[in-house]
């Protein structure tokens, strides 16, 4: 596994910057708002329209939820992500986002309460647009330095094991390797379920709001398209025959076909999904690589003659790579290939 872990000092720095600092900022906001409660009108303006006039009213609790619950929840979640995601965790990005978000939300909510102190009616609440800008400025002013103070992401270590295995094939030997490659079941179904739920809520919303039939149709069409894209991104099949390699989503498209004559060499590599490919699905990677990235870990990497290198996180990649190299060797024995040619980057 390509993992990275931080030493205790770095961990402390991450906890302070990505966890404690955003919570401390929010705590100041909570303290100020609570101290102002006696001077506030009821109900309180809690939402403003684009022109800056208040259009939503409620209790001070609704605003306190943001600073007292949302910000700490984010801080704890992102801090844990920076600490434990290991491979590909970007503590600087996570810290910057976390501190910036906390500053923005705290300034925004605190200011929107502050401007209503001593008012008879919340209807008279002034625009908070300037304060939202101030919040954004605070987010940058605090988030960027915090990010720079956080430890750097560890470079991902790539294992250099027997990277280009091969197997000897008889002159007329017929071969077939097939294997499905999918995102981890719980994650995949969780995402698909979440999307279905979101669209179901939207449909229910459109219905209850007396929305038009055409609006509903559009919603269902986009829902279906989103699901198709998700399925095509997350579930793939790899098939290797004497003719070459085919990597296709379970829906048939997208599909990559690599004739055996196009293959320079197949290797087994360790992939770090976030750090190298920025996520999961069909991805561009470092050094002109196209990745079908469904998890981190073992992957089959196929260097092609005339196109980008193809990387697939398929299980049993050693067998697949050995078979592919065996087929290449049978076609035309390779000269001793020099160590990994990284290609133009």
């Amino acid at each position: 596994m390509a993992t990275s872990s931080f030493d205790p000092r770095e961990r402390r720095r991450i906890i302070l910057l990505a966890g404690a600092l955003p919570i401390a900022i929010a705590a100041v906001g909570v303290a100020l708002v609570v101290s102002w409660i006696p001077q506030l009108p009821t109900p309180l303006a809690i939402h403003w329209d684009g022109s800056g006039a208040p259009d939503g009213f409620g209790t001070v609790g609704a605003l306190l939820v943001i600073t007292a619950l949302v910000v700490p929840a984010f801080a704890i979640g992102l801090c844990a992500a920076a600490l434990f995601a290991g491979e590909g965790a970007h503590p600087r990005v996570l810290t910057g986002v976390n501190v910036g978000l906390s500053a923005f939300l705290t300034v925004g909510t605190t200011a929107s309460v502050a401007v209503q102190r001593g008012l008879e009616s919340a209807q008279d609440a002034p625009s908070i647009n300037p304060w939202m800008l101030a919040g954004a400025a605070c987010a940058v002013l605090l988030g960027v330095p915090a990010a720079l103070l956080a430890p750097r992401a560890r470079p991902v270590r790539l294992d250099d094991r027997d990277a280009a295995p091969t197997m000897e094939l008889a002159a007329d030997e017929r071969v077939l390797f097939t294997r499905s490659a999918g995102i981890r079941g719980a994650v995949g179904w969780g995402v698909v379920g979440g999307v279905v739920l979101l669209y179901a809520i939207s449909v229910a919303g459109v219905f209850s709001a007396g929305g038009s039939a055409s609006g509903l149709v559009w919603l269902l069409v986009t829902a279906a398209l989103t699901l198709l894209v998700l399925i095509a991104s997350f579930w793939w099949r790899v098939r290797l025959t004497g003719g070459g390699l085919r990597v296709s989503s379970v829906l048939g498209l997208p599909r990559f076909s690599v004739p055996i004559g196009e293959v320079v060499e197949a290797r087994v590599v360790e992939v770090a999904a976030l750090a190298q490919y920025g996520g999961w699905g069909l991805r561009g990677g470092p050094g002109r690589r196209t990745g079908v990235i469904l998890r981190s870990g073992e992957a089959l990497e196929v260097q092609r003659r005339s196109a980008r290198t193809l990387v697939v996180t398929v299980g049993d990649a050693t067998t697949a790579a050995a078979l592919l190299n065996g087929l290449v060797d049978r076609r035309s024995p390779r000269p001793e290939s020099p160590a990994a040619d990284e290609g133009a980057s």
Partner: protein
Amino acid sequence: MLIRIDPDSPVPLYEQLAAAVRGEVLRGSLAAGERLPSARDLAALLEINVHTVLHAYQLLRDEGLVDLRRGRGAVVTDRAHDFADFAAALPTLVAAAKRLNLSPAAIAAMIREAY
């Protein structure tokens, strides 16, 4: 799943194919419930006769390793679990045989005797 078939081998193709599938079940890369390619697809991919594939699938069905259903192709049965258990016993046997410098043929002969 990896299947290798050599037409130049003296072993009949259908036996090679059945052995390959059996081997993949033993290796754990074919699990219970997994579906094998249809006989026609597999024949096309391996460039062999479809009857050869059907012959191999029937052999595997007779062993109880796959279920053949019209329209559903060949599905690996629950016996795959038993095969996996059996396969787990093999490394011990092989290690013991290696300590005694016994060839695979010699072990096979001993197993045949004992059967």
